[in-house]
């Protein structure tokens, strides 16, 4: 992956920014170039809510190169407060404490560096909301 390719996705990765169709109001994450429902190309940036609910999760044991140190880790489907769903790693949680339906919030975490330029890369993950 080129540094520029990583840089292009920074709004998504760092701030959970998707986009909204100005004609039918649907929100997309990751952002789209065109609304697949009404075919409008008028889409505007849209910050997604940071909080949501864990709909389903899995503990991943068979992992790609670079992920050895964090294996096993959790991947989950999160439904945000506005109904938009996001796939992401679930972090900062003991495997035995994860439950479907638990409240989670977005955070930024380092991901295994994959760029030739050796810059440090980050992406969104979700962690349990601490009450």
């Amino acid at each position, binding site marked *: *992956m080129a540094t520029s*390719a990583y840089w*292009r*996705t920074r709004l*998504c990765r760092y701030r959970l920014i998707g986009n909204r169709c100005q004609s039918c109001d649907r929100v*997309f*994450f*990751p952002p789209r170039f065109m609304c*697949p429902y009404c075919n409008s190309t008028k889409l505007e940036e849209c910050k997604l809510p940071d909080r949501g609910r864990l709909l*389903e*999760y*899995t*503990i*991943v*044991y*068979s*992992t*790609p*190169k*670079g*992920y050895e140190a*964090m294996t096993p*880790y959790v*991947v*989950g*489907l999160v439904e945000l407060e506005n109904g938009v*769903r*996001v*796939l*992401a*790693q679930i972090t900062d949680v003991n495997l035995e404490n994860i439950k479907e339906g638990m409240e989670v919030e977005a955070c930024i975490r380092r*991901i*295994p560096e*994959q760029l030739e330029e050796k810059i440090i*890369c980050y*992406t969104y993950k979700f962690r349990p909301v601490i009450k």
Partner: protein
Amino acid sequence: MREVVIASIGYTRVSEHWEKSLKGLFMEASLKALENAGLNVKSLDGLYVANAFAGYLQRQTNLANIMAESLGFFDGFAISIDSGGASGGIAIHEAYNDVARGIRDIVLVCGVEKMSEASPQDVLLAQMSVGDQEHFRFSGITIHSLAALIYKTYMKRFNVKQEDIALMSVISHEHASTCSHAQFPFKVSLEAVMKAPIVSDPIRALEIPAPCDGAAAVIVCSHEKAKEIGLPHIKIAASRIARDSFNLNERSDLLAMEALVRASRLAYEDARIKPSDLSFVELYDDYTVMGVLALEKLGLCEPGEGVKLLKSGEVSLKGAMPVNTFGGLKARGAPVGAVGVYQAVEAYLQLVDSAGANQVKNARVGATYCGCCFNSIVVVNIFERCC
């Protein structure tokens, strides 16, 4: 529209072919299909090459051109089809359309894949490369983890145990145990499946295919050409493709598999059949749960009853609705881009009564389905016996 048939087949065993290259596998299957039919490469009008991972694993792009060169095929067109697990089915779809519309008379379709010489981690990355790389690469989301989300959703919604779903693997292995071209021609017990290591919970290693190599080829042509060739042939009665939302987070229901429902209904309509008319079905069981779901989405049983159908024994070779008659992806093996062509080869063997120990009695019509990325693209092909 002209009637379109498959008039000859050629294939390698699905295995780890250390001594054979991508090109070598392609040549073996293609030459067998040609030689069986007594055809010279000069008699072909076109070539479709189906493959999923050569660009990633062999660093080989421009595949159809490379393979056509190897085959000494200079007079017609050669096109690569690259749609992950749907590639083989799409290649057959394209050849079918060409011949049905009279654009071409005789076309060679070959699916080829070589995965065994890559590391398991590279294979995992290749499998993930069919997803949207811009956003999902290096997120830690693996293809197995997505399947696991579908698996857990299924278990909860229909209140079934993993053992019920994992039975799919046991049945496929049983069918492969008498299949000479299978990667794993032996039975496995449900206990063994349930004791296998977990890849992404709850999915066990014996519920998914292993990396493998293989090539399968078919000659797709008009009925007239087939009569000239003189071999037993089967009719392609329908071929339909449908798409669904690519990203699982954008699907409102992980179990809907809308593309499979749509493609199969359209294909049944084209072939003027009902699901119950099928003599056998070849599924794209890249995960046991995907095989179970497919039984439902193809209309072979009601939603949530896939497990019941598995347990009933009706899906075994002697049952009323045999599935994965040579072992499916799990046990025959899944050379990803070639799967759709292997399925066509297997439909051919069944419908010309050449399936040996795996023969389904009185096989009249069979359906094959292959897909990519949890059925974001699906091909359903229906084949009929020519009387």
